């Protein structure tokens, strides 16, 4: 009887933990995507602020609005992230301090730039440097911690343990049945047979469900979540590159210092981006090469025009550097959103069924225990 009870309890517990683990995995995956989104949006804001600075004091209102939206998105995501994961709160609080410093310095850069003061450029380049030196390491820690949590939680299905448990319970029942058979000279005890049948069916169903869940999680981890993460990293690196291009031109003449970091960021984009955004990135990278050539030939004004010209018609054809980059940024954002949402949706789908399975297993464990008790009771009556 204990065998059936223990089997029911442990099997139900394993299923319950798997159910809980999938829920945590969905939350952790969402948190990971949120952190990656903060990372991308912060550097997107920096790309917009540095590019707008190049134009001079009279900044394009649309670009300003885009910057404000990016920063608002960052703060919204941070608030959501702090609610979703208490373990991230301390790091997020430190991040907010850095972002406040950054937005303050950008505001001072703007004010000074509007008055034609070179100190504005110093505020801006200092803000960009501090963003990379102070805020990005915090985000890297947050991304690493949440990647680990997501991967751990997604490995929460235990088909092998369920199978072993089932086999162990069946062997136990078979052994007890054999002991009874030796004492009472009846080969098969009906109660034991019913219990074994229940254990067998429950084991097969639970193992199949856990195996399916495990495979689905593996596939999410290597497909959708991997795609979302890679593209988010590519988007962050792409925005880093666009900001570095503007900083190069702001430093006019000594800007080649920014070319090596641009190439490093571009290499990250090429390595991490999924194929669907290759065309957009290549189009932007071609514009960048043209800008560098102009700058190297001391045609700085032409280089700035190339780097800051915006697509007035807002059409699909990216005929300026900024438009080409925005096409890459928007496409990347779509890839991250689609794959991130799919990951958490799939992790949450069918969880009700898994919980019901856990409850039914517990119930069937009790039924099996009752069957075993009745089986033994019948023998006792015969003996009496």
């Amino acid at each position, binding site marked *: 009887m204990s065998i059936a*009870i223990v089997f029911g309890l442990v099997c139900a517990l394993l299923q319950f933990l798997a159910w809980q683990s999938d829920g945590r995995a969905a939350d952790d995956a969402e948190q990971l995507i949120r952190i990656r989104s903060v990372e991308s949006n912060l550097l997107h804001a920096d790309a917009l602020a540095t590019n707008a600075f190049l134009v*001079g004091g009279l900044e394009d209102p649309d670009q300003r609005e885009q910057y404000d939206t990016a920063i608002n998105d960052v703060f919204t995501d941070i608030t959501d992230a702090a609610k979703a994961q208490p*373990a991230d709160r*301390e790091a997020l609080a430190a991040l907010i301090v850095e972002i406040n410093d950054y937005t303050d310095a950008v505001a001072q850069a703007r004010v000074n730039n509007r008055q034609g003061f070179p100190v504005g450029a110093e505020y801006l380049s200092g803000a960009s440097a501090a963003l990379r030196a102070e805020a990005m390491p915090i985000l890297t820690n947050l991304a690493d911690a949440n990647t680990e949590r997501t991967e751990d939680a997604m490995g929460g299905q235990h088909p092998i343990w369920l199978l072993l448990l089932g086999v162990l319970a069946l062997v136990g029942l078979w052994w007890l049945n054999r002991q009874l058979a030796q004492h009472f000279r009846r080969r098969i005890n009906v109660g034991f047979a019913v219990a074994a049948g229940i254990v067998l069916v429950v084991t097969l169903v639970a193992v199949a469900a856990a195996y399916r869940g495990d495979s689905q999680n593996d596939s999410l981890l290597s497909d959708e979540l991997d795609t979302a993460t890679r593209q988010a990293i590519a988007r962050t690196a792409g925005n880093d590159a666009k900001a570095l291009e503007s900083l190069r031109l702001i430093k*006019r003449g*000594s800007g080649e210092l920014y070319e090596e970091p641009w190439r490093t960021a571009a290499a990250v984009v090429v390595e991490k981006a999924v194929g669907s955004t290759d065309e957009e990135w290549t189009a932007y990278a071609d514009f960048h090469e043209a800008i560098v050539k102009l700058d190297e030939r001391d045609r700085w004004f032409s280089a700035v025009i190339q780097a800051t010209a915006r697509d007035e018609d807002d059409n699909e054809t990216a005929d300026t550097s900024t438009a080409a980059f925005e096409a890459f940024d928007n496409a990347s954002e779509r890839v991250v959103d689609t794959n991130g949402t799919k990951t958490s949706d799939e992790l949450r789908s069918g969880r009700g069924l898994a919980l019901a399975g856990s409850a039914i297993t517990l119930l069937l464990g009790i039924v099996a225990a009752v069957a075993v008790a009745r089986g033994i009771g019948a023998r006792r009556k015969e003996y009496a």
Partner: protein
Amino acid sequence: MTRISRPVVVLGALALILSGCGYDETPLPEDPAPSSAAPPPPLLCERDSVETDKRSYAPGSVDPADLEIGDGSGPRTLRVGVSADTYLMAAANPEKNNRIEGFDIEIVTRIAEEIFGDDFNPGRDIEYRVITAGQRIPLLEEGELDMVVRNMTINCDRWEHIAFSAEYYHATQKVLVRADLAEPVDADGDGVEDETQVPDLAELRVCAPTGSTSLDNVAEEEPEAVISPAPNHTGCLVKLQNGDVDVITGDDTVLAGLAAQDPYAIVPEVQPQLGGEYGEPYGVGVNAENIELAAFINQVLEDMRADGSWQAAYNKWLAPYLGGPDVNEEGAVQPEPLYGR
């Protein structure tokens, strides 16, 4: 019942423990170790005398068409290395499409005018290259630039690599302070405290570019001053505005540019003696072999003295912040040239 209650309790407890497993706190990055500022390299040359260092080539009546300028590949241009963030000397003006303007640029423009004559077109004939302080000598040596006009002090070390024009501006090391720290003083003895002086630098936080001689001079003058360097002078202004430092030290030209960007940063009239008598004599740097160009520039500087255009440029850019000859005794007038090299 007691036979099953024990495992139930154990498993229940296990379930609670497992399901209640918490997350490890996300770690914060460790603070990077502060980088130590490299001291400025000492002069390697044997300084004969200040006068020897300042000595340049006698003005020459060279035909501008014979001057070796440009890289020879396209139209003839004057390739000039300048700063773009030294306000009042050479800085990009966002209101004028980021055109570089200032006192140094007036000198460059006049030299170019004399070279190209009546057909002079600044956009076509001058190729500005914005350079860092560290790029000044290498780019001249490599022949990438024809001349450098960028707060460049003439000294014997540099004469070993490049050639200079005669001194075109005599800068001195001064101190800029937060407005509330400037002490009123009756410097001219008329009974009215209508001027200001630099306060005692002890305990004050002083900023200058990392590794600059200006910082060493302050440390020598006032060992109790708290030294707080920044990557450049504009970085010092950021620190001053953010309340991280009280004082900035550097060439008067640079400080004038900083004071012009912030009404609460002033360069007091009464200054401590920093950096000795030598000061910072600015010269136009040219390639060591292009002596004709140096001599030609010296002729242009003489012309500027004669027609008053040097003084007009000073009055336009620097006088509002550094004062006229009554305040800035050496800097407000064009330095007397020394020739005979």
